[in-house]
């Protein structure tokens, strides 16, 4: 790595020009403060969870009007006793809610409010004399049993009402409202909805469930409000840890300063790039801040050691930072590059995280490695401490005796076997890990959260309202779908999809045209077919659109009759069903498309299409990302040690920890999801440091005492403590997220903690035994090369207490 003379030259420069450097860094910091203050926005966009370059998402964006608004409130009202047709009060409740949605909730798009009491839901009455179209509530809101029976009959006989707005068991009804994005007022909406729910549930007759993106946003906002507590707890824990470690104000303030400065640089960088910072991934940033703290602590610890040895501030600074520079660089670069690899996932949330987090980590080079030497020249040198035994020392001495034994004699073999078994165990179960939970509600909230309860109720009562797969039939020429053959083909395709697993029905332009055709043939179901002649198709389209307002038919076909949708309704879905539905569609298109067709079929919209895209992207990214991180880390390790064996030994903790944490996820029923992407990168990036510490210290000690057993013993006694402190700082920084009300953060924190603990264990248990058995040549060779020792000697910087 870097020659010692360069490093010393740099440090001398820093100390000589400390004012200039401080001012420069200060200006940079002000610059980033300004960007943080003016340009940084903290906001969650669920669109950021989707890969915008994926063809399905591009299709969704292109044909957004045909897929219906995404910002839709869905309200399920379920009776506590009997059916909705038993009590006129239930219908009055529906009517009150409908009117309130239209009049009292801001931002509601009046065109997109639908319920069984809204006049928009109409029924067609057929008799010998002809056809009459009336609202479902015709002639009035029901008042007695006779009215209720009549209403039931109308609902039973109207296509598209039962199953969609009234559940098949008659116990629940659906009310939906779309929102204008530009007039949307989340807080007022939420307050009004709470009032409505409270008012209508008061008599105990009904239970109301709220779902849909607006509600998800509202719950999400509520939870975000509680983030302050997590930050407070984390901050206090950090300060306490620092106090216990240094027992001085200085020892607390300097690391906190570094952490804050890096945070400002990171946040400012996000502002500079115009990224919105997503509260969903704040866990990672908190962890990086902890990372800055631990770097700071290690360097100060080393400085204190050197100062106690030489009693000269300037000399102590040069000595300690010369030793620290190389491992700190390797560690920071490894962290930074590892996290940058997340950018391979073309999911905006992940890409923004990758760039911001990477910059944030690299900034530690300034906030700690560059600024600390300068700061230390200004502050008083540490007092001579009485040789007090800290709590952590006593605890660690006990543990270390056991660890040392593991790296010697025959126990070494047992450790190697344990390594192999753990890895095989990990790989075996990790292999079963399934993708899941990409549906926003399930990914964000706990299973029992009211949102997920409501979403499940919606899926249980109303087939396919929430879970649809939409396929676009894109016309190759104008009016492409005004053609009997094309409509027939669309219908056949939709029917083929409906026969697939989990599917329960479909809706296409053909469905609507057939209903009209039937109605005009005295309602005989045999006439529920498409006419054979194109001009008859044209007439039916005319009849269909004549009574509707503009845009009402967009969900089925475009106003110029060029494009159409195939909506497949699913009664249940999971990753397997989504996969099989997409495969089924692809196979059908492959087998049935010909160049003469007037439309081409494009996949896929609807909830299932979006989930399929996200799943595909997350799966792909993870499979690419993890090997990429391993490759990057291997490369850096190889450059550090100039040895393949050395690089592999350093990676031992990661090689065990990664599969093992995947296995634990599988066994605990945590699905693999978008969360897993940054966690692996952050976990391996940080975990690999433990490997550096342990291996570097062993090599360093081996140079002094050319005996691996003794070198192991000394390394564990010194470096082990550094790992213990670093580990506990990092765990403390994320542990409070476990209690955060959003599952997304809690799960992410849990897996991160698991990874970091496994890494620490892996480094302390496996590396000494492996070194002892393999006796790596690079270490033996270096035994004589004292000159090269500088870099490695410092490897145990933090633990040299």
């Amino acid at each position: 790595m870097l020659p010692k003379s360069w490093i010393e030259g740099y440090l001398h420069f820093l100390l000589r020009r400390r004012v200039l450097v401080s001012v420069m860094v200060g200006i940079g910091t002000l610059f980033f403060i300004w960007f943080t203050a003016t340009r940084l926005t903290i906001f969650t966009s669920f669109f950021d969870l989707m890969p915008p370059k994926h063809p399905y998402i591009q299709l969704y964006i292109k044909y957004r009007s045909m897929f219906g608004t995404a910002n839709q409130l869905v309200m399920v009202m379920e009776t506590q006793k009997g059916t909705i047709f038993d009590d006129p009060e239930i219908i009055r409740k529906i009517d009150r809610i409908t009117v309130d949605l239209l009049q009292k909730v801001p931002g509601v798009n009046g065109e997109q409010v639908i319920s069984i009491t809204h006049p928009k839901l109409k029924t067609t009455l057929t008799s010998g004399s002809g056809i009459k179209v009336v609202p479902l509530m015709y002639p009035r809101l029901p008042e007695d049993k006779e009215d209720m029976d009549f209403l039931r009959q109308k609902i039973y006989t109207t296509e598209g009402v039962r199953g969609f707005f009234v559940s098949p068991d008659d116990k629940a009804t659906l009310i939906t409202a779309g929102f204008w994005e530009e007039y949307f007022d989340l807080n007022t909406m939420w307050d009004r909805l709470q009032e409505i729910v409270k008012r209508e549930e008061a008599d105990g007759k009904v239970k109301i469930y709220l779902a849909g993106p607006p509600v998800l946003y509202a719950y999400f906002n509520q939870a975000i409000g509680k983030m302050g507590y997590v930050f407070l707890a984390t901050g206090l824990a950090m300060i306490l840890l620092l106090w216990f470690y240094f027992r001085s104000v200085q020892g607390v303030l300097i690391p906190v300063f570094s952490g804050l400065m890096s945070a400002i640089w990171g946040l400012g960088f996000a502002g500079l790039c115009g990224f919105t910072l997503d509260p969903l991934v704040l866990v990672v940033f908190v962890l990086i801040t902890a990372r800055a703290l631990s770097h700071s602590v290690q360097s100060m610890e080393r400085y204190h050691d050197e100062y106690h040895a030489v009693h000269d501030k300037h000399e102590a600074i040069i000595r300690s930072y010369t030793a620290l520079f190389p491992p700190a660089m390797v560690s920071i670069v490894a962290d930074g590059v590892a996290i940058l690899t997340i950018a391979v996932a073309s999911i905006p949330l992940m890409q923004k995280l990758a760039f911001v987090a990477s910059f944030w980590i690299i900034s530690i080079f300034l906030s700690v490695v560059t600024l600390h030497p300068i700061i230390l020249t200004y502050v008083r040198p540490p007092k001579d401490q009485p040789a007090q035994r800290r709590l952590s020392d006593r605890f660690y001495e006990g543990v270390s005796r056991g660890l040392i034994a593991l790296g010697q004699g025959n126990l070494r073999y047992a450790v190697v076997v344990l390594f192999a078994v753990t890895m095989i165990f990990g790989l075996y179960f990790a292999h079963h890990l399934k993708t899941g939970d990409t549906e926003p509600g399930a990914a964000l909230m706990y299973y029992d959260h009211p949102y997920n309860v409501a979403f499940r109720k919606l899926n249980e009562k109303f087939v396919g309202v929430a879970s649809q797969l939409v396929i676009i039939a894109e016309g190759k020429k104008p009016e492409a779908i005004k053609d009997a053959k094309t409509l027939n083909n669309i219908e056949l395709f939709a029917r083929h999809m409906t026969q697939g697993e989990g599917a329960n029905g479909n809706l296409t332009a053909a469905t609507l045209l057939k209903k009209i055709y039937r109605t005009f043939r005295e309602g005989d179901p045999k006439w529920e077919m498409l006419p054979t002649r194109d001009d008859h198709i044209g007439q039916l389209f005319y009849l269909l659109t004549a009574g509707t307002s503009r845009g009402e038919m967009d969900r089925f076909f475009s106003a110029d009759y060029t494009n159409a949708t195939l909506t497949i309704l699913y009664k249940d879905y999971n990753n397997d069903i989504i996969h099989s539905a997409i495969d089924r569609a692809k196979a059908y298109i492959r087998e049935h498309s010909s160049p003469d067709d007037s439309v081409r079929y494009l996949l896929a919209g609807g909830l299932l299409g979006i989930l399929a895209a996200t799943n595909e992207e997350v799966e792909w990214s993870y499979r690419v990302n993890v090997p990429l991180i391993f490759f990057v880390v291997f490369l850096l390790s190889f450059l550090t040690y100039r040895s393949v064996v050395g690089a592999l030994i350093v990676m031992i903790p990661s090689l065990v920890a990664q599969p093992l944490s995947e296995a634990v996820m599988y066994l605990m029923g945590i699905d693999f999801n978008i969360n897993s992407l940054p966690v692996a990168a952050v976990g391996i990036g940080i975990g690999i440091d433990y490997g550096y510490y342990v291996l570097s210290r062993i090599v360093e000690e081996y140079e002094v005492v050319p005996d691996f057993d003794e070198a192991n013993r000394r390394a564990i006694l010194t470096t082990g403590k550094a790992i213990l402190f670093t580990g506990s700082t990092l765990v403390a920084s994320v542990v409070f997220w476990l209690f955060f009300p959003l599952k997304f953060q809690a799960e992410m924190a849990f897996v991160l903690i698991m990874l970091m603990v496994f890494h620490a264990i892996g480094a302390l248990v496996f590396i000494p035994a492996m070194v002892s058995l393999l006796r790596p040549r690079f270490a033996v060779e270096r035994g004589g090369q004292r000159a090269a020792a500088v870099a490695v000697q410092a490897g145990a910087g933090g633990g040299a207490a």
Partner: protein
Amino acid sequence: MPKGKFEPSWTARWFTCAVVAVVAGAATAIRGATPPLGERIIDNLYSTQFVSANEGWTVGSFGSIFHTGDGGETWRPQASTTYEQLFGVSFADAHNGWIVGRTGLILHTANGGEKWERQKNTNEKHLFSVSAVDAQHVWAVGDWGVMLASSDGGQTWQDRSLDRDVILYAQSWPDSQHGWTVGEMGTVLVTSDGGQTWQDQASGTEKTLFSIHFADLKRGWACGLDGIILHSEDGGATWKAQRGNTEVGALEQIGVAEAMENASLYDITVVGNIGYAVGDIGSLFLSTDGGVTWARQEIPRDSKLGWIRSVSLVSGTHGMFVGANGLMIRIAADNVEVSGRK
């Protein structure tokens, strides 16, 4: 090769691979050819006919044909080689059957549906009903007054279409000489010479009739729009309404509730003392006195939404209703109860 150590030759390895491939391929092919039993039936079903208590067929949209050999307990799809809607099925016996459908489609089987073959018909009008009087004599009727007849088991079909535009929905043939057909605007036509000539009968209504059934040469029933059931005791010379109003009234006069109560009836049959009439909104009427009086029956809740388009009854005790979205309801033995079937 050392003794006792199994070392397969390359030929043996290739042979094994080939066998595995063939078996796997065959298994896949078989699986593809015959969908597993109990496959979900989701298509609209338009017609059903049972030739015995156990054996029956039902047909519907997208060319779907299903056969049962256990009274409707389980159904197995038969290959129709078409995606057209199939509107009518009729078997002369357990082997010879016909299916008609959209755009003049006629399918025939001589082996109980093992194989269905298309029969030549140049008239492309939709055919809504087929009636196999015996293995030789078959009649099909449909849109635009189309009437097709075959007297050679469908080898050739003669076009006997009416010279007027009336949709014919159903027919009934108590024997090969006597037949009735009904359709739009209360149309009832009768023949007593095996279809050589057809005469109009006065149904007494202008409402469309969707079904007709003659138990013998005298006693017949017809049903149709607004839930009317007509009955004749004299071979169709006079018709009397058993339920519903024969007068066409404006919706405002009838009242919406009444209109809903009297949903269209699409099929009617009487065997012995038992009669069924089925229709829209899950309408189901039962007669236990040989078609003299009719009483509304409740059907399983899940089926309420859909229409029932066809009923087939064998000796009054076994049979089937079929309808919307694969709706199938078995008529259970003896006690004439209906039970839903998923």
